[in-house]
């Protein structure tokens, strides 16, 4: 049967047979093999061996062989013999928690139906051992058994069960670390230098002792580095050993050779033409006679950890010398004094030829290219590249962590290079849809905000994916309605109006209607309403002076208030109106970086003034007389000796006077806010902030207005009221609860005209991945508000402290919860306010 043709003869395939334990049909296997009845094959030859290869590569079969069955004239009849590889039926994993089993199965793709090969068993075993070793289970043992399943129904399929036994053992800790040959640096300091391998100790709360082999190897290097930093540049680890004490503990022995102490000798520069020796020496800041420190030397030449460092490499890199190389060479080590030669090859200054951006599937080119600080024809400058990356990430359209650069087509002879920025788009739209029960009824909210909107494509149906995006404009729309109020607002902004300069144009329109509560029906009385309609247009401009972190903004806003039979304590008149036409000018400076959600450094401050026209100067109303009339009338109202009708008439008179006073609101408002961010210790960011606000009147006889006031307390979320009020958060107290006291010592409810607040926050990031950024924070803060400058005492604060959590997800925006304890009593009360919980939704930082 086994005909062996040595001479490579040509045959025609007459038929192909398939034999073996397989669940596949004969036809399928033949098609897989690539052989065809009727075609010509050379035996022995490529076609047959390729057929075997193809079948192997399918990963479905075992014991594949092709035989010649018989030969008739030039017609050959072939026979393929193979068996199906056994399929995996069930996996049982012993020795780990049930909840982990599922994860291990997916990590190793031990799914039902997978073909069981030796390779699968070995890789699974190795994977598990190294996985647990990495977690500190040094003594992990893994054993994998396979059991063939006798399947009575499907006899054609061979099926196997797999049993994985994992014995993790105990987590291994390091009981003792022994050094020998350590003659100079105290053992304790070396132990500190070992970042991941710590000796067992109760004081190691944050970093518990664990023995992980790879970490231990890295730590040996840190020990040597520690010596090298102190002048012992020949230091090395002669040997190290791990001694197992029991199933839970090991001791490690490290045998060191310290070598001799070296110091810096003469340092000379060679090859520098652009910068003088003096300039370079000032950056190097290493002088003859100092203890030799290789780490410091390389850091001063090129600091790989800090891209903004002041080192020699950056000096060249920030001035166009992209191809410069700097190499320190030891030229003599006589008497343990090391003379250095710093060899510099400067190369030509390099200019950018092409600067491109890729990866912007959503955002249009012009939105990105206008932010670049590296443009074609410019001298290469590393710090400009870094700045561009930072500013692109601050746009909020791209994933800050994934912005990368590629340098292409470097040409050292011409001094040219191409630069490519790689960006990855992230979702930058937020949708808020809420329904809830509060304030005595159902409240529905629909909020849409698009951060990368494209207005010109508003009528271009093709660009709706799902909204037109890519021009860097912001559009937001908010509808909120309940039984008692309705509010509609719309805003739009374009950061580069006209496309020539970063002049931000913004506009907003809003309309709010509030109804009065009807005590009889318990419902809103639709006939008693307070309507506010507002419109504002503003321009903001980035300034180049004094530095380009400054922004100047200006806005004109107009609001119309209309009261219809709306009698509350807030206003003396129930029917009437008021107009608010104001001009706002603000200056702000923001140098925070990198991530707008979680800045780690920089500061931001803003100062603004909102002013109206001084109508009282030219409208010929005698406010002094009005003030006196009003006081007289007030005296009548307050005096119970007058008859009721007299008092009512007097109150009507007051309403008339107030209507006159507030026909056109006349005020000025000054606000100031500053905050700083600083990374104090690893990842911990401290954020102190100060803010202050003052609302005043030009004409004291006309008096302070009832709008535009400051409301301190609570989460600081803007409320539905659009009377120009500023809500200022002060955690640990209820919302808008810090009200000034009136002359009788009672708490008022219409806000203050002066306030200040101090806050100190400590933040720690849990994760800063693009899908979700989470951080925890602790805070202490205090603030106070008054109604008159004479009463003002900025240090008589309502104080609080507490902690909170923030979660930022691109789809939801910022969510947070704060727990605060108020140490002081609310106005008009005597007990400390105590604990308050605040939920923060959507408020940015």
């Amino acid at each position: 049967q086994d005909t062996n043709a040595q001479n490579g003869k040509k045959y025609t395939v007459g038929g192909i047979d398939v034999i073996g334990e397989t669940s596949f049909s004969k036809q399928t296997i033949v098609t897989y093999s690539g052989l065809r009845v009727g075609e010509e094959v050379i035996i022995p030859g490529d076609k047959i061996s390729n057929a075997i290869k193809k079948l192997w590569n399918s990963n479905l079969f075992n014991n594949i062989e092709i035989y010649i069955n018989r030969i008739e004239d030039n017609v050959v009849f072939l026979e393929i013999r193979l068996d199906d590889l056994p399929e995996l039926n069930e996996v049982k994993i012993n020795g780990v928690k049930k909840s982990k089993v599922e994860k291990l199965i997916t990590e190793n793709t031990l799914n039902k139906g997978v073909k069981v090969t030796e390779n699968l068993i070995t890789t699974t075993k190795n994977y598990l051992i190294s996985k647990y070793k990495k977690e500190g289970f040094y003594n992990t043992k893994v054993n994998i058994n396979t059991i063939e399943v006798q399947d009575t129904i499907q006899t054609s399929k061979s099926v196997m069960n797999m049993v994985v036994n994992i014995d993790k053992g105990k987590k291994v800790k390091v009981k003792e670390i022994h050094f020998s040959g350590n003659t100079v640096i105290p053992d304790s300091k070396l132990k500190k230098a070992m970042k991941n391998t710590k000796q067992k100790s109760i004081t190691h709360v944050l970093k518990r002792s664990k023995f992980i082999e790879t970490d231990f190897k890295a730590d040996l290097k840190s020990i040597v580095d520690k010596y090298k930093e102190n002048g012992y540049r020949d230091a090395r680890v002669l040997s190290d050993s791990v001694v197992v004490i029991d199933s839970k503990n090991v001791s490690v022995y490290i045998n060191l050779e310290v070598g001799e102490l070296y110091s810096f000798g003469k340092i000379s520069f060679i090859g520098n033409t652009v910068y003088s020796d003096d300039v370079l020496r000032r950056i190097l800041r290493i002088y003859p006679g100092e203890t030799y420190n290789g780490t410091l030397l390389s850091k001063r030449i090129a600091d790989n950890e800090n891209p903004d460092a002041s080192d020699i490499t950056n000096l060249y890199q920030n001035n166009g010398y992209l191809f410069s190389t700097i190499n320190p060479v030891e030229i003599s080590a006589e008497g343990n004094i090391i003379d250095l030669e710093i060899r510099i090859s400067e190369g030509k200054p390099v200019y950018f030829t092409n600067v491109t951006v890729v990866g912007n599937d959503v955002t249009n080119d012009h939105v990105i290219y206008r932010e670049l600080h590296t443009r074609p024809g410019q001298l290469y400058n590393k710090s400009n590249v870094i700045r561009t990356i930072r500013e692109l990430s601050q746009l909020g359209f791209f994933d800050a962590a994934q912005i990368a650069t590629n340098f292409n087509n470097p040409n050292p002879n011409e001094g040219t290079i191409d630069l490519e920025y790689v960006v990855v788009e992230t979702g930058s739209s937020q949708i808020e849809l809420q329904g809830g029960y509060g304030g005595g009824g159902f409240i529905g909210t629909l909020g849409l905000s698009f951060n990368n909107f494209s207005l010109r494509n508003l009528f271009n149906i093709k660009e709706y994916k799902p909204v037109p995006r890519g021009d860097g404009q912001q559009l937001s729309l908010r509808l909120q309605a309940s039984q008692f109020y309705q509010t509609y607002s719309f805003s739009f902004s374009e950061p580069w109006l006209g496309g020539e300069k970063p002049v931000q144009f913004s506009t907003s329109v809003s309309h709010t209607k509030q109804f009065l509560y009807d005590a009889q029906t318990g419902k809103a009385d639709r006939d008693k309403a307070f309507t506010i309609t507002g419109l504002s247009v503003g321009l903001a401009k980035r300034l180049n002076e004094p530095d380009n972190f400054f922004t100047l903004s200006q806005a004109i806003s107009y609001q119309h208030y209309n009261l219809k039979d709306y009698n509350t304590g807030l206003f003396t008149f129930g029917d009437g109106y008021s107009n608010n036409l104001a001009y706002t000018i603000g200056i702000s400076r923001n140098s925070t970086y990198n991530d707008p959600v979680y800045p780690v450094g920089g500061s931001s401050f803003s100062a603004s003034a909102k002013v109206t026209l001084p109508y009282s100067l030219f409208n010929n109303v005698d406010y002094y007389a009005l003030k006196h009339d009003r006081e007289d009338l007030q005296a009548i109202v307050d005096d119970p000796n007058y008859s009721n009708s007299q008092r009512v008439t007097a109150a009507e008179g007051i309403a008339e006077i107030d209507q006159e006073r507030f026909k056109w609101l006349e005020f000025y408002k000054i606000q100031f806010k500053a905050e700083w961010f600083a990374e104090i210790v690893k990842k911990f960011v401290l954020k102190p902030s100060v803010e202050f606000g003052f609302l005043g009147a030009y004409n004291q006889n006309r008096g302070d207005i009832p709008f535009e006031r400051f409301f301190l307390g609570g989460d600081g979320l803007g409320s539905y009221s659009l009377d120009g009020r500023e809500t200022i958060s002060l955690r640990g107290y209820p919302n808008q609860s810090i009200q000034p006291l009136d002359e009788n010592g009672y708490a008022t409810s219409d806000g203050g005209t002066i306030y200040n607040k101090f806050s100190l926050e400590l933040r720690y990031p849990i994760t800063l991945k693009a899908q979700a950024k989470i951080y925890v924070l602790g805070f202490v803060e205090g603030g106070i508000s008054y109604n008159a400058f004479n009463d003002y005492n900025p240090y008589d604060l309502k104080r609080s402290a507490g902690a909170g959590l923030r979660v930022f997800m691109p789809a939801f925006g910022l969510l947070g919860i704060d727990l605060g304890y108020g140490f002081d009593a609310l106005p008009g009360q005597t007990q400390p306010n105590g604990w308050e919980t605040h939920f923060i939704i959507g408020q940015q930082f």
Partner: protein
Amino acid sequence: PYQIALKKPDISEKFKVGEELYNKGKFDKANKLFAQIVPEYRGKPQAEKLMFLYSNTFYEMKDYYLASYQFERFVSAYPNSGKVEEAFFLSAKAAYMLSPIFSKDQIETRDAIEKLQTFINLYPNSEFTPEANELVRELDYKLETKAFEIAKQYNTIAEYTADYNASITAFDNFILDFPGSPYREEAYFYKLDSAYKLAINSVETKKQDRLEDVKIHYSNYKKSYKEESKYLKEAEKMLEHIIKELEKYSTKS
């Protein structure tokens, strides 16, 4: 019959109904049926036809990403098929369909150009080749527009960035990269405009040299200019101004 075929396990029934739906233009339903039976038909002789129809349902459903991919798979799986030429073309055309507006990342555009070009090289006499050539031209024009608009933006924002050179360099690159572009004249004009503004806003020490430079830019522009250009007048005005400015230097020396 669609709902029945969808639930029935009979694969030949699914194929039959799917094909009927396909011929009626109901591509999404056909696609669903085909998707169910593709694994079963793998390696069988009918698979060739099935895979072509299946690929084309994606194309007809405007899912060009999958269409391009499936046609590409068809081409590599059945290199001897009679439909291979059409599949190759449709794979490239689907890639063409994926190319976005010029102002966004053009990775798909470059990919489509490459695929279409490969097709043209492989089947120079195909009935699809004229169309492929047309598509390539269109995509090339898109890349031109992109480079042109970016260079032009450097000119627009030059006053803010105080970098007039960026626009000049970018247009230089543009002229070098797209020698036959219809934007050529405009490119030379904007180069002149940038050089002019650079000279006018220049510090005194460099001004004379830069003014002289503008003259060179002007003559370069004149060479490229076509009759009745709307830019000509403006360019002449610049030249006049430059000459006037230069007079100051000649009288001084």
